[in-house]
Each structure stands twice: as C-alpha cells, then as structure tokens.
C-alpha cells in the first residue's frame, strides 16, 4: 500500500526539519510544473507501507496572493494526496490554526502534526491535545521534529487514517481498496499517543507532560464542523461538507455514534465534486479554478476568531504573556537601537572572513589546489610515463581534465562554508531581522527589506536566489530584485577572483576579493535606483513579515542542505565541467583542419577568440584566451577558471595580464550575464522574454561599461607603469 501524503504548514513551523527527519537523504527536489517553486519529494517505508511525501511550500494562508499559496491549494485539490499532514507550531498556535481551518475547508483527509512540543514543555505551558482533536475534528499527533520525537507515531497515525478511509469508502481512491492488516485495526481506546498501532510501549516524554488527560478516543468520533465554525454544513463550496469531516475517526480510531457508511459516501461525493471542477481547468498550476472565490474579510475574521477560541480552550499559559522569552532577550541585543547595525556588519564580516581568509576557508582551498596541481598531476604523470602512453593522453588528462575539473573542485570547501553560514543565518531567524533592519535603507533604493534575503543568497548561487524572489509579493519588486541578483557575486565566480588575486595581488588577496563583492553590491544598488526610477516605477510591496523566534538550527537539516549544494557542485564538476574541460582541451589543441596545432593560438579556439578579442581590447584583455574563457563562463562560471587553467600556464598569465587588466577582467566576470542555469531561472521567474532579453543585454552592457571605466580610468591615473 502506497500512501501519498502532503506536508503543509506555515513558514517557520519546522516543516523542513520534519521532512528531513522523515526522508533523510532519500529525497528529490524539483520545481512545480510551470513555476519555480521548489518541490521536494521523498519516499519512506514503514512496515508494509510506502509513503510518498510531498513537501508543500510554507504558507500563512490559502488566500491566493502568492504563487506558493496557489501551488499549495491547487496541489491539494488536483493531485489529491491521500492525507494532508498539517504541521502546526504549538508555540504559535493561534496563527497556525488559521491555515489549519482553511485547509480543513478543502475537505481532504487531514492530520495535525503538532510540532515544537518541546518548547511548550520548556515553557511549562499546558496543551490539551484531546480538546484540540475534538475541536478540530481531526487526529492531532504531538511531535518534536527537532528532537525527533513522535515521528513514528505520526507515520502510524497517517497509515491508520488512510486505512480507515479505505475501510469506509473503498472505491473513491486507489489506495483505499486494500484491506488493512489485521493487527492494524486498533480497538477503541487503545490508540493513546504512547502506543502506536504497532504496539510499541510508550516512549514519548512529551505525551505525559503535555497531555494530562488523554484517552484519545473519548468523545471524538464523527465530529462535524462544530457549531460556531463558519463553514458548517451547507457551506457554498462544499455542499456535503459537514458530515465528511468525521473522516479522521474511522475504525482505526475507534468508532462511535454517528459513524455510518453514509458518511463515507458523503465524503466521496464531496471529493468528487471538488475534483471535477478543478479538473476542468487548464493544467497551469499558477492558475486558480475559475469558480474560486477568495475568502471575504468576514470569513477570514471568523476563521481567526475560531482559531483564537480553540487556542484559548486548549492552551494554558504558565507564564504571563508579557514575560520575555529567551528569544526576546536575544532579540533585545541583536536589534538594539545602537548595537544592532554594528553587530550586523560584524556578522557579515565574520562570514566573509571565515569563508575567504587564507588562514581559514582559504587554507582548505590551498590544500586542495596543491593536491590537484602537484600531487595528483604528479602521480598521473608518473603513472602515464611508466605505462608509456603518448604525450597527448597525459596532456588531455593533466592539462585538460585535472586542470579544469580540479581547478573547480578546489573551491568546494569555501562554497560549502558560505552555504553553511547563509543557512545558519536563515535557520536561526536572524535573516528576518536583517531584512527588518535594512528595510528603511533598501526603500531608498526602491527595494524592500524583503529583497535582502534573496540578494544575500545570491552570494551562494544565483539560481536559488532568483527562485527566492517568489516570496516577494508584487511583480515589480520581484522583477527589480531579479534584475540585480546576478550582480551579487555567486560562489562560482569566487574562484576567478582568487585565481587572479593569488597571481597579481598576493599581498592584498583578501581585500581585492572583497572589493569585487563590494563592487557587485554597489552596482546592484545603483541599478535598483536606475530601474525603479525608469522602467520599474511603482510602489514597493508592504513589508509585512513575521519575525520568528530565534532557534538553534537543526544540524541534520543544515547538513542535508549543505550536502545538497556540495553534491550539486561535485556533479557539475564531474559532468558539465568535465565535458567542457575535454571540449576546451580539444578546441585549443586542434586547428580548424583538425591537425594538432603547433601553437594554441592557431587552434580552433584561437581563431574564434581572435575574432572577439578586438572587442575586449579596450578593457585590457584583448587576447583570444580571455574571450574564450568568458564564452565558456556562459555555460558555468566555474568554467572560466577551468578554461584559464587549460589555456594558460601561470607564466603565460603573468605575461598576458597586468594587475590593472586582471582587475578589469575580474570586474567583467563579476558583472556579465550569469550562467545558463541562472538565465533559465531568470526567464522562468520573469515570465517574460522581453524582460529576460533586457536583463541579458543590461548585464553585458554594465559589465562592458564598468570594466572599460576600470581599465581606461586606471590607465589615465597611471596605475600601470
């Protein structure tokens, strides 16, 4: 039996942590068709069951004001997951329950995974799970994704629910035709949280502490949307809705009055109706069903009132609500009126120092470089000499593949470090504060503080950074941010700076590298002003963001995230960069007539590069090698260094460039059109070919202009003797 479940919940509710707990490394990521909202899918096995998990985007509501909200709503209605697992942050119950109540209106089988139970316990608050279950009319499983507690119980509850649905209504869904296994039908009264369907003994500290009275099945069965809920029977979108909500409590949960087969049929009917009108719509995910009616203010208000009512019914605070939490005290320092900005700058400085300083992150890179360029090349050369292969084989292996692929892999530790720091800032909740602090400044550039997060991510990789702009609310802000993100120097461009800095600026390596990042930021901000005053006029979206409590990052999620990026980088090095290294080697070794070139300037690349070189000579690097390296950089920015490594020996670099032209070249690679992967993301997020083309031309134009100013200005100032 394969159970298809979808994870839905607010941002910061621990959804990703739970997903990682459940799936570990067995997950795949992709995009929802038509939109670049990340889609994570994982498969887990428990006993005889396979569970396919889909991680839906983190959202606050189902009102269709963002792509994520639309994607979530449509996924639930069109793909019909067997069970929706709604992760609810118990420490932020009221606001989280609003989404729960909205989700419930969609009429799909649901389970609430009540997360952060450890925080509730820590605070000494009391949460009545049984009341919450009966008020919501669906199973509630207390978990702590962070402490890895309650996860198995959650899975078992999902299975129990799926099986009970199958038992009730055998024909409405594919999974439901299978009969449950005998021992999985739980006798009424036995399904307390400490004891899962598999009969494990209680081992969950949370249960006893947080659920003082919890005979789970008491008074639960067949609870329809209770009186006072604004979407009881006869609600306009869901005619047979009320009775259908008893579905969480089939035989698997103990049966009771009001649980006849008629309810199951009613549910099936509701689902069918829901399914049908969503089916009639085109397959575009970003579109809503035609008959979709957004919630009115009154409906939202009523749902929130219901959420507040439930919260006050189930939660007993031990502390006064005005008391400061640990998070509040941390916040008093980190967003202090005077200290906040110095601390902010210090944190950014530390991140860069730890990543790039030659005694820290830089040292790792130095070791790897030594390994590839000396040790490994040495072994291969010795081995090949021994085997007596022809010189071209060792040239291909050493000057082509090791120089190219190795040149890129060298930077792996630094890129991993950068990603680690960025995700720590994100996971701890500091990123939201950073956006909070820079908002006023960003407004002056026509941007919103929200743009800060995607822009900072741009230092890692342009692709996820551009994808992150979908959290911005209006198209103007999104387009403006997308236009300037490529100027934030991505991790793959770093090797280029380090490559030149270690040749020409040995004494000021760090400073020169840092100046590139700074230049990128300045150009991005100037571009934002320019664009917001011309083609992207209009007002910024409101800055309404949650400032989540500070939390320690989950190490497993952190590790998985970094591993994801590192894996991606290694795969690219092993495939794309490998192939390109071979191609570059061939193109620089052979002439147009496919004979071995006596001098690589006679090679295919030599000829191609020489056409382009005159265009680049005002910038100080009018040689064919530079032109070719820049062209390969369009495929992947790492390839620039790979190409330089193949096309030049270090001595040739010294002879071809001087510090000024090297700096101009670095400037050009910083600013010119990003790699094809980033362009792909850009085109998808812009939703416009005109804007995509405009972005490409703008970036090439800016790169050319600024490099020209750097080089010619430097010449005028007499910077090169």
């Amino acid at each position: 039996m394969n159970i298809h479940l979808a994870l839905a919940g607010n941002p910061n509710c621990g959804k990703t942590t739970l997903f990682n707990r459940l799936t570990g490394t067995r997950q795949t990521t992709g995009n929802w068709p038509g939109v670049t909202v990340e889609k994570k899918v994982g498969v887990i096995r428990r006993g005889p069951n396979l569970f396919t998990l889909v991680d839906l985007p983190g959202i606050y509501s189902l009102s269709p004001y963002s792509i994520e909200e639309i994607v979530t709503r449509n996924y639930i209605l069109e793909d019909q997951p067997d069970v929706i697992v709604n992760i609810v942050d118990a420490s932020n119950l009221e606001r989280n329950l609003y989404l729960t109540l909205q989700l419930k209106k969609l009429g799909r089988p649901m389970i609430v995974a009540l997360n952060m139970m450890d925080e509730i316990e820590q605070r000494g608050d009391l949460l009545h799970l049984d009341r919450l279950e009966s008020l919501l009319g669906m199973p509630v499983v207390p978990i702590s994704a962070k402490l890895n507690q309650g996860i198995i119980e959650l899975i078992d509850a999902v299975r129990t629910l799926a099986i009970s649905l199958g038992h009730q209504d055998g024909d409405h869904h594919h999974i439901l035709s299978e009969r449950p296994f005998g021992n999985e039908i739980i006798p009424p009264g036995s399904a307390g949280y400490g004891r899962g369907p598999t009969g494990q003994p209680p081992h969950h500290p949370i249960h006893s502490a947080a659920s003082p009275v919890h005979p789970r099945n008491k008074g639960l069965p067949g609870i329809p949307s209770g009186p006072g809920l604004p979407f009881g029977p006869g609600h306009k979108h869901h005619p047979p809705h009320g009775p259908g909500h008893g579905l969480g409590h089939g035989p698997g949960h103990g049966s009771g009055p009001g649980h006849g087969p008629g309810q199951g049929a009613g549910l099936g009917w509701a689902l069918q109706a829901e399914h049908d009108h969503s089916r009639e719509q085109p397959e575009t995910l970003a579109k809503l069903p035609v008959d979709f009616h957004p919630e009115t203010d009154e409906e939202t208000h009523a749902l929130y009132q219901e959420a507040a009512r439930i919260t006050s019914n189930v939660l007993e605070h031990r502390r006064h609500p005005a008391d400061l939490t640990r998070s509040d005290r941390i916040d008093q320092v980190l967003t202090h009126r005077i200290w906040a900005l110095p601390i902010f700058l210090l944190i950014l400085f530390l991140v860069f120092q730890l990543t790039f300083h030659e005694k820290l992150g830089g040292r790792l890179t130095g070791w790897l470089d030594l390994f590839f360029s000396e040790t490994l090349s040495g072994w291969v050369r010795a081995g090949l000499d021994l085997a007596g292969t022809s010189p071209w084989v060792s040239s291909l292996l050493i000057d082509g593949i090791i120089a190219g692929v190795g040149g890129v892999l060298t930077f792996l530790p630094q890129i991993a470090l950068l990603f680690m720091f960025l995700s720590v800032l994100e996971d701890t909740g500091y990123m939201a504060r950073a956006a909070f602090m820079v908002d006023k400044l960003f407004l002056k550039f026509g941007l919103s503080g929200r743009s800060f997060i995607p822009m900072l991510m741009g230092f890692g990789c342009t692709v996820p950074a551009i994808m992150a702009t979908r959290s911005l609310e209006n198209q103007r802000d999104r387009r403006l941010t997308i236009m300037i993100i490529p100027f934030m120097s991505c991790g793959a461009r770093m090797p280029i700076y380090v490559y030149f800095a270690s040749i020409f600026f040995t004494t000021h390596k760090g400073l020169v590298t840092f100046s590139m990042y700074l230049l990128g930021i300045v150009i991005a901000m100037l571009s934002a002003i320019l664009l917001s005053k011309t083609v992207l006029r209009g007002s910024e979206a409101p800055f309404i963001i949650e400032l989540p409590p500070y939390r320690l990052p989950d190490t497993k999620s952190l590790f998985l995230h970094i591993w994801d990026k590192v894996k991606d980088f290694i795969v690219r090095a092993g495939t794309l960069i490998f192939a390109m290294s071979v191609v570059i080697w061939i193109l620089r070794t052979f002439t147009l007539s496919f004979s071995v070139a006596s001098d690589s300037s006679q090679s295919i690349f030599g000829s191609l590069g020489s056409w382009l070189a005159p265009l680049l000579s005002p910038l100080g690097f009018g040689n064919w090698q530079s032109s070719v390296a820049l062209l390969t950089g369009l495929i992947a920015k790492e390839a620039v260094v790979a190409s330089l490594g193949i096309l030049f020996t270090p001595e040739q670099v010294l002879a071809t460039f001087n510090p000024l032209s090297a700096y101009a070249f670095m400037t050009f690679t910083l600013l010119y059109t990003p790699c094809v992967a980033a362009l792909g993301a850009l085109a998808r997020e812009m939703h416009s070919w005109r804007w995509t083309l405009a972005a490409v031309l703008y970036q090439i134009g800016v790169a050319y202009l600024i490099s020209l100013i750097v080089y010619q200005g430097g010449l005028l100032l007499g910077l090169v003797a």
Partner: protein
Amino acid sequence: MPVPLSDFKPGESGTIVSIQGTGALRQRLIAMGVTPGTWLIVRKFAPLGDPMEIRLRNYNLSIRKRDAALIEMMREDRQ
C-alpha cells in the same frame, strides 16, 4: 478616539478598531491575523526608525509605519 498604530510608541498596546485601505496590503494584514478586535503591543522600532515590530496573537510581526498608519487602534491605558 481611535488613533493610527503608527502613532504608538514602543511598549504601548491597544485593540484594533479597523483597517483602512484596500487591495493587497489590507488582504495581507488580515491574512496575518491583523483583524478588528485583536489586541497587540508595539515591541520596538528598527534601528533606523522604521519599520516597527508588533506582537499579536502570540507572535511578532514587522510592519512599516506608513502601512501601520492604516490600522486604527483603540489605545490601552498603560499600567
């Protein structure tokens, strides 16, 4: 007498009377639980003086002063 939320100082609290304006801003506010009748307290202002941080429904929300001007409040007497 209702006053706009933007006039509140850190530490001041009150109850939302109404939300002015239309469109995305209003919708977003309401979706985040900024609804009439809700109690909130102003926590602080950002170091540069804007936006402000408010606490309502047991969570913290950031909002610009110019948007907070649309939220009409009934001020609560400070203890």
